[in-house]
């Protein structure tokens, strides 16, 4: 809820001040990359926020018009560089939709394992960095300690730690090495109890609740109107998750998996695990809820990886071969959105029949999530702006492409 002048937290409501323009960024540590916000402030109260983006624009879409789809995979890594695997998956599925290509069952389950591990890694960074935004350093270190182990696993599978290019059109570049699944299982076993620690450190921490509960409230209507997706949309109580509601080519990956969409329904979140209670101060759609949804999604992802590993083990055959590097594309166009950790990542491919797309377009989830910031920051305190920006969990590489 926007802070009102008669709010007891505002101590200077009777002090007459001049309006001032404050530049936050592009190098401000809490803007998650190179985001510049111009704040129009009246004392401590922000009356207007104007975001300036584009500092990391690398013309990814123009490059996509000059490369074959498989050659463009490494560029998708560099969009959301905290969830490279999920970006690869989004583009690979879009091209497969155009090619009408189905991957083998084993590859499908391996993609779920990799995609959900990517989600855990991404949400861990989101959580740690959010702690940093609010002035606490330790959660960041705890989060990176665990994320490092996921990166080790990814490195073992594909050789890279950040820009994987592992999931590719037609499958994956290689199968996971022998013994990988056991290591992955051991990691999950060890991660699960640590989530409780994170909850103690942040989710249920009194200071954390004071900083986030009731701050930057985003109503469901506004979230829908601005095209917000992912945890931002679900944090406002809108029941939508493309893993359940998306197009068939994507949902069939999760066919038969048991999972509940993390969203507050009828006044409560899913009860399949022992989650910490929602504090009284929290309002649906505020920073705390967005953070909470992410934390719960980590637990959900652990469940999904476990289920996927069982299925991967029991499915026959191999992971198949990726399509040729210069595979001819049928003339036509396809658009597909997938549920990446930050929201719905959409790719659009238009082909004229050659092996190079006529047009490659990336619809960024953070781009839409950020576009709502001037609405939810209006009337908040300057100190709350980092809290709101952090709760949107943006990655500038994806916004600017």
């Amino acid at each position, binding site marked *: 809820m926007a802070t009102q002048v008669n709010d007891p937290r505002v101590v200077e409501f009777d002090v007459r001040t001049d309006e001032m323009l404050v530049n936050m960024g592009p190098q401000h540590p809490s803007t998650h990359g190179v985001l510049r916000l111009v704040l129009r402030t009246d004392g401590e109260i922000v009356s207007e926020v104007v975001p300036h983006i584009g500092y990391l624009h690398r013309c990814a879409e123009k490059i996509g018009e000059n490369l074959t789809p498989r050659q463009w995979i490494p560029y998708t890594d560099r969009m959301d560089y905290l969830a490279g695997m999920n970006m690869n998956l989004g583009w690979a599925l879009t091209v497969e939709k155009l090619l009408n290509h189905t991957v083998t069952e084993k590859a499908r389950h391996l993609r779920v394992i990799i995609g959900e591990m990517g989600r855990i890694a991404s949400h861990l960074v989101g959580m740690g960095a959010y702690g940093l935004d609010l002035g606490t350093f330790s959660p960041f270190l705890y989060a990176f300690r665990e994320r490092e182990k996921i990166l080790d696993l990814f490195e073992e599978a594909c050789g890279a730690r950040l820009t994987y290019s592992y999931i590719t059109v037609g499958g994956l570049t290689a199968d996971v090495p022998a013994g990988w699944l056991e290591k992955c299982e051991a990691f999950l076993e060890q991660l699960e109890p640590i989530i409780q620690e994170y909850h103690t450190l942040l989710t249920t921490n009194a200071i954390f609740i004071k900083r986030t509960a009731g701050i930057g409230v985003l109503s469901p209507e506004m979230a829908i109107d601005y095209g917000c997706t992912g945890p931002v949309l679900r944090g406002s109580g809108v029941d939508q998750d493309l893993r359940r509601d998306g197009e068939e080519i994507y949902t069939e990956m999760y066919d038969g998996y048991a999972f509940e969409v993390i969203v507050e329904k009828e006044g409560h979140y899913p009860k399949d695990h022992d989650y910490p209670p929602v504090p009284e101060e929290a309002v649906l759609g505020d920073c705390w809820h967005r953070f909470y949804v992410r934390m719960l999604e980590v637990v959900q992802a652990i469940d999904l990886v476990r289920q996927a590993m069982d299925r991967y083990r029991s499915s026959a055959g191999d992971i198949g071969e990726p399509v040729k590097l210069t595979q001819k594309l049928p003339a036509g166009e396809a*658009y597909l959105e997938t549920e990446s950790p930050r929201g719905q990542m959409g790719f659009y491919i238009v082909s004229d029949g050659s092996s190079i797309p006529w047009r490659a377009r990336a619809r960024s989830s953070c781009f839409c999530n950020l*576009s709502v910031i001037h609405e939810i920051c209006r009337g908040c305190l300057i100190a709350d702006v980092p809290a709101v920006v952090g709760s949107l969990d943006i990655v500038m590489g994806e916004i600017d492409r």
Partner: protein
Amino acid sequence: MSGQDFVERLKKRFGEGIQGVNLEAIDPWIEVAPDSLVEVSRYLRDEADLRFNMLNCISAVDYFEPDPKKAAKVKWEPHLEVVYHLWSLPNKSSLVLKVMLPRWKDGQEGELPEVPSVASVWSGADWHEREVYDLSGVQFTGHPFLWRILCPEDWEGHPLRKDYEMPLEYHGIRGK
């Protein structure tokens, strides 16, 4: 509702506003006349059984072949398409709208083609339209603040046009 019924319904309501359909495409699309775009969008958003309340993406595709040899072989006339990907939250279904535009307004090179802005229907369109204007060069009439968003404000040209040429120099930085 089948695709054909849906199109008939729209045609009955908007007549000439619906200019064409392609139901065989992977993502079936409906072509809308630029003048009826806002009206059609509002109808699609507000109608009780449709409720396309989310705008996922606006993209522009430039159909132009700069190479004269290849240009002789292509099957289409040079034009620009603005593609709207819509999503209905209550029905969990998607819809694609297309608007066909000339590459330049009145055939005069440098004059951007115009299409009405849908930012009054979906607020999310605001940034998407700024991006399309910036990269593909489409003038969205009625947009609250049509300004470059990804490129610097003094950038010249629209990079996703097929005949775009990289500048040789920008503020002392060498290009190409």
